[in-house]
């Protein structure tokens, strides 16, 4: 039996042209894929830290010494279409004088909003039962580490934090957990 690939029809001018056309389409498709993938993966190519900016959190006198208060800031990368989601909360602990801790609202376990209870000096998470001490160290429950902390600095009479990313284990993993309490269970 004759091998089909050796038939003359397999080598006609049209077959050749068709193969060339396929290759041309493949090439154009590959070139087209570059901007499409670039567009889809845009958020991936940007370095995480480049999303972060120094943002004013409020005046120092809003945060009495020895207390932990809820504060709000605006997402620096936001747009008007963000609506309410542009304003984000965080917990500010004024330890003494110029010493602060600014905790993310997001539980280190799954990102749910933690509540501060000043009476028992604990942060509790409503989702899966994570609990943290006043210095953010993990006290109980499933969180693998203490609360995420924002870097802060004092500019005149204002407290500034460096923020702009959703705090998760990946984005804040490099920042060490706050000092663990000696009484940790």
């Amino acid at each position, binding site marked *: 039996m004759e091998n089909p690939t050796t038939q003359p029809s397999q080598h006609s001018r049209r077959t050749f042209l068709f193969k060339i056309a396929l290759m041309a389409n493949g090439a154009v498709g590959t070139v087209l894929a570059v901007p499409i993938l670039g567009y889809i993966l845009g958020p991936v190519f*940007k370095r995480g830290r480049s999303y972060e900016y120094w943002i004013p959190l409020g005046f120092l006198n809003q945060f009495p010494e020895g207390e932990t208060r809820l504060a709000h800031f605006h997402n620096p990368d936001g747009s008007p279409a963000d609506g309410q*989601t542009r304003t984000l*909360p965080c917990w500010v602990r004024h330890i003494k004088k110029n010493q602060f801790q600014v905790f993310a609202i997001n539980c280190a376990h799954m990102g749910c909003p933690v509540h501060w209870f000043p009476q028992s000096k*604990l942060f509790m998470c*409503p989702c899966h039962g994570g609990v943290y001490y006043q210095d953010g160290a993990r006290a109980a429950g499933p969180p693998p580490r203490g609360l995420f902390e924002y870097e802060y600095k004092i500019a005149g009479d204002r407290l500034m934090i460096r923020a702009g990313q959703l705090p998760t284990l990946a984005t804040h993993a490099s920042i060490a957990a706050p000092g663990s309490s000696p009484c*940790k269970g």
Partner: protein
Amino acid sequence: MQGLKQKGIAIYHWLDRRLGLAGPVIEAAEHPIPKSSASWWYVFGSAATVILMMQIVTGVLLALVYTPTARDAWNSLNFLNHGLTLGWFLRALHGWGSDFMITIVLIHMTQVFMFGAYKFPRELTWIVGVFLLLMTFGMAFTGQVLRFDQDAYWGIGIGASIMARVPFVGSKLVHLLLGGPIIGATTVSRFFALHVFVIPGILLAFVGLHVWMVLRLGINEWPMPGRLVRRSTYVQEYEAEIHTDGVPFIPDAGWTDAIFAAAIILAIMTCAAVFGPIGPTGAPDPTIIQTVPKPDVPFLWIYALLALLPPKLETPILLIVPVVVICVMLALPFFAGEGEKHWSRRPVAVLMVLVIAVSLGTLTVVSLHPPWSPEMTAWSADPVQPRFLRGRTPLERQGAIVFQEKQCRNCHALAGLGGKRGPDLASVATRLTEDELVRQVLQGGGNMPAYGSALSPAQTTALVAFLDTLNGNERPARDPSLELTHSKAAQKQQKF
């Protein structure tokens, strides 16, 4: 009348001469199936397809009004619910349709598995079905996000937190999921595109393939114990069966599908009318932190797993188990593609279905009243029952106040009232001695935080005095050595 009929037939012929569809459609409708398969057990696939049609229609109608931005989505849902004639009903149909869809798809899959329908030559039909199941869950999750309320907002955070646990590329995946560094406008529009264009597009193509293969390979015959599937003989045996004992799908089997589909749609309409639309809950405002976010019913079991998995194993389990499960499901027809189809000869298969169903069911039921979350308002909302205060000393009563004020109640119930995170303390004094109570309160332990820094010595004394009265009618726990060494303890012992 006669003229009208002739005109109708003429139009039909005119169309069919151009479309040429009548022949293949009639052939598909009348394709022969094994007589045994004309059964009520074979109705779930077609029911899922009918629900899909309803979801598409109601989805398009909702999209007429829904605004896919973080700023306006919640308002547009409320407008649908309250400002538009029957907008609430359309939302309710779409929401309940989603829950029914997941239920029916899971039943369909279980039936196919139990009847061995995934075996040769229907391996690819099963594999496409696995992808359809994944896409159904994908639709449910993206749909839950589009109902952009408090639960949705924090739910995306949970999705992002899971993604963040992937080694090396975690933060990149989070940014890809959110469409940026933080939950906002780009997140909602991204989930809209997924829910409305991307997943439904692939889903419809896959449903097409799935149905095409069902028609091409024929519906699975009713399994019989001892009738083995062999690659060499199955097709001939099947062909022989539908020739000797086959019936046309329509009308012999189709009527059960049609009645069941109608009943399901009626059930969805009833649920929609009686229970109304699902949400939206509170506004998606992250500054309102007085919220207890919870996923929709199809994902409650994941919510339970996240609370109950041992913390150290959580990340590996979250990242590895789903991949393994999906791979096993995809590979199933290749390592079990032949042999017995009947459930009575496949005990492992039956056991697997039972274990999975009981596990998922239990996790879901437990999640309805989760015992692992502290009850955030229990300390101020749940009173100490009078019987725990009657006849107590002032110190012990002061201890009850400390007990409430320090949020012990958020995790510990008293006779069933309060949080369920820790043990009920109504009889704690029968389990722990006074010294053990002091140690537990100050140092914590097990899953309890240490209260050493939150309690003054006076508060600790009062709290422990109160806890030490909580012995029900049982004998309180006492350290026997105290009797010999501690005269005060010895006196107290005599009182009981």
